[in-house]
């Protein structure tokens, strides 16, 4: 037991007080008054110079929200959230319009620097040399739409994307500049009435990203957004909408960090993906928000609704997520497989340590014929955390030939944490073929001893074993992210912070 005990002790010490991104940027912000009312919704809409139809849309959601109650079915416990005690909008004070990075508050740029996101250098990231036999060595590019406390501060790469016909902009701008697209697709995957948190988001969302890839276009670069919650007590309500038109392809990366806080912060984002015929969207997330300190105080409450709609035939949506942060995670990136022969994928690594509570999984809803889906979920629980996989695979009466493969693996570190698997499988036609595999294991003391006998420290050994455990998922991430994710996994489990 001793080796495992040591790990347990070490993991317990990883105090999230050492949270690497726990710093605060001192900039004045332009806040909405505390609390939520129709006036708050109007304030936000006005701040964004939104057209009347958008305000109406928000108000309808708000009125709906008033009739709803918070969902209680997830395996998470948290004190009651006082929705009137939160700020719903905070923007860095605008310096007129921003046309270049030089005009941005240096404090903000400094924040990004600390986060390791050099905006000035991000334009062309050095291409990663791929392992032998793989293509794509040249230089790869990432466009960053930086979301700083709800407002997109700078958007790079616009020109090159424009040339390809790709629209990539803050959703607040898209509402003004491309109302026809936004009207058509916003809320078409996650309706305003969908669930408590999604409805709240619909009423008060502040900003987020909008992507439209026109027919037949393969987006020339990975699109990326960094979210960062900065203002004290500000709920972060991001709204992302990505549309891949017929035969289009786009890969979108989302990375998140937030500064340390004592108060719990509510985050309720909505992400909607739409693929038309023969289109594909690959959506990758690395999430390492503040998980709270070693006593379980503070940390982000992350109630996210992410859903993709394979609306067209032969279309594909793939979710990959690496979740290491937040005090509470409530998140089920899902696919509606509406088009015939469409395909949904969900690759997930969810790590919980300290007092974190994770309830995450996916839904694969097979509606079209010969639709396929694949779920690979890796949960890792340490400390006194609780880690739940909750999934739904369902085949409609008409979804003949539907196929799903699910593998849920859980790894426990120490003896005070818990891993739970709650799969729902519903086949309403006899031709559906669903497979489900699940394993739960502990990091064995023999494996750790083998590694330390070869000269690895206990921490390095845990990192190595865990990275082996999650390899299938990390392989799905774009190369730049995979490296970051690997580091993050080691950091979140080892305590070698910094």
């Amino acid at each position, binding site marked *: *037991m*001793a*080796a495992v005990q*040591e790990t347990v002790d070490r993991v317990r010490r990883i105090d999230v007080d050492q949270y690497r991104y726990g710093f605060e940027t001192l900039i004045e912000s332009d806040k909405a008054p505390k609390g939520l009312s129709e006036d708050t919704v109007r304030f936000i809409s006005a701040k964004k110079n939104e057209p009347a139809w958008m305000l109406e849309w928000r108000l309808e959601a708000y009125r709906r929200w008033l009739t709803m109650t918070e969902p209680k079915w997830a395996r998470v416990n948290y004190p009651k959230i006082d929705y009137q005690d939160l700020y719903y909008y905070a923007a860095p004070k605008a310096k007129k319009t921003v046309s270049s990075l030089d005009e941005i508050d240096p404090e903000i740029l400094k924040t990004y620097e600390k986060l390791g996101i050099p905006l000035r250098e991000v334009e062309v990231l050095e291409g990663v040399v791929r392992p032998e036999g793989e293509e794509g060595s040249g230089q790869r590019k990432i466009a960053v739409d930086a979301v700083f406390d709800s407002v997109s501060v700078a958007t790079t790469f616009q020109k090159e994307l424009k040339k390809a016909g790709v629209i990539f902009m803050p959703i607040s701008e898209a509402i003004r500049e491309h109302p026809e697209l936004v009207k058509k697709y916003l809320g078409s995957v996650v309706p305003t009435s969908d669930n408590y948190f999604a409805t709240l988001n619909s009423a008060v969302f502040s900003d987020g990203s909008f992507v439209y890839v026109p027919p037949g276009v393969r987006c020339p670069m990975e699109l990326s957004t960094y979210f960062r919650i900065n203002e004290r007590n500000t709920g972060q309500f991001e709204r992302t909408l990505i549309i891949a038109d017929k035969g289009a392809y786009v890969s979108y990366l989302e990375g998140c960090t937030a500064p340390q806080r004592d108060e719990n912060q509510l985050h309720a984002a909505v992400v909607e993906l739409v693929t038309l015929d023969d289109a594909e969207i690959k959506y990758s997330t690395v999430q390492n928000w503040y998980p709270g300190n070693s006593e379980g105080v503070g940390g982000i409450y992350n109630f996210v609704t992410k859903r993709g709609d394979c609306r067209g035939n032969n279309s594909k949506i793939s979710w990959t997520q690496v979740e290491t942060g937040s005090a509470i995670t409530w998140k089920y990136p899902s696919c509606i497989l509406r088009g015939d022969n469409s395909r949904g994928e969900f690759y997930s690594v969810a790590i919980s340590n300290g007092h974190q509570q994770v309830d995450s999984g996916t839904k694969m809803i097979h509606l079209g014929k010969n639709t396929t889906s694949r779920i690979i979920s890796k949960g890792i629980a340490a400390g006194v955390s609780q880690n739940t996989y909750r999934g739904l695979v369902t085949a409609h009466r008409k979804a003949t030939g539907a196929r799903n493969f699910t593998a849920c693996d859980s790894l426990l570190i120490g003896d005070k944490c818990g891993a739970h698997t709650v799969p729902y499988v519903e086949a309403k036609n006899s031709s559906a073929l669903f497979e489900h595999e699940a394993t739960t294991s502990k990091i*064995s*003391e*023999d*494996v750790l*001893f*083998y*590694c*330390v*006998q*070869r*000269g*690895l*420290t*206990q921490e*390095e050994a845990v990192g*190595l*074993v865990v*990275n*082996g*455990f*999650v*390899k*299938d998922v990390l392989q799905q991430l774009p190369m730049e992210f995979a490296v970051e994710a690997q580091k993050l996994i080691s950091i979140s489990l080892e305590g070698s912070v910094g």
Partner: protein
Amino acid sequence: MSLLEVKDLQVSVDEREILHGLSLTVNLGEIHAIMGPNGSGKSTLSHVIAGKPGYEVTGGEILFKGEDLLEMSPDERAVKGVFLAFQYPVEIPGVTTINFLRTALNAQRKARGESEFLVPDFLKKMRSVASSLNIPMDMLKRGVNVGFSGGEKKRNEILQMALFEPSLCILDEMDSGLDIDALRVAADGVNALRSPDRAMVVITHYQRLLNYIVPDVVHVMSKGRVVKSGGKELALELEASGYAQFEDAA
């Protein structure tokens, strides 16, 4: 100064004493064989030297290059040059053997203040060692020991021994689970690593292994003590007459 000095070592597991005052001295360049029946404490000795958790040292000491080995963590011991070839090497799914070897080698080098191997240099070194042991590259691209045959697992242990260049190699029941051909290959690998700068402690039940790895000194263990030491002919004697005579002696 001897490489390894075990003095009057007493070890308990769950408050039951397994080693009752064991002493052993090993010098550089020597190969020692430790023989004995099941339960005599052979594997316990190897585990305690390597620092496996779960054993309580209640008396005695172990000096390695004159330093107190028991004060060191298992990884520090590895960095200092203690290598244990496991009787049952573990599987580590998802971690390729190449990655494991490089990570471990660089961890050791870093801890010693040496420069870490870059990928090309490492691959070059690994390829030459692997080919001398007849280890194909595709085996190294698989997860550590995942799906390896018994012989492959043991060759993988010897590969690591050759890569890390430890000064003390402990081979725990290297012959278990090996057929005669696999045993010969493994033994050839070990013999190639014999060096004046290295000592080996070969733990085995059977004399058979010692036909291939010829020891300088043979120790017979029984009931937690070394009851007899001698030259390589002692192993032959044991093969002929069995361990029973020594059990009485203990």
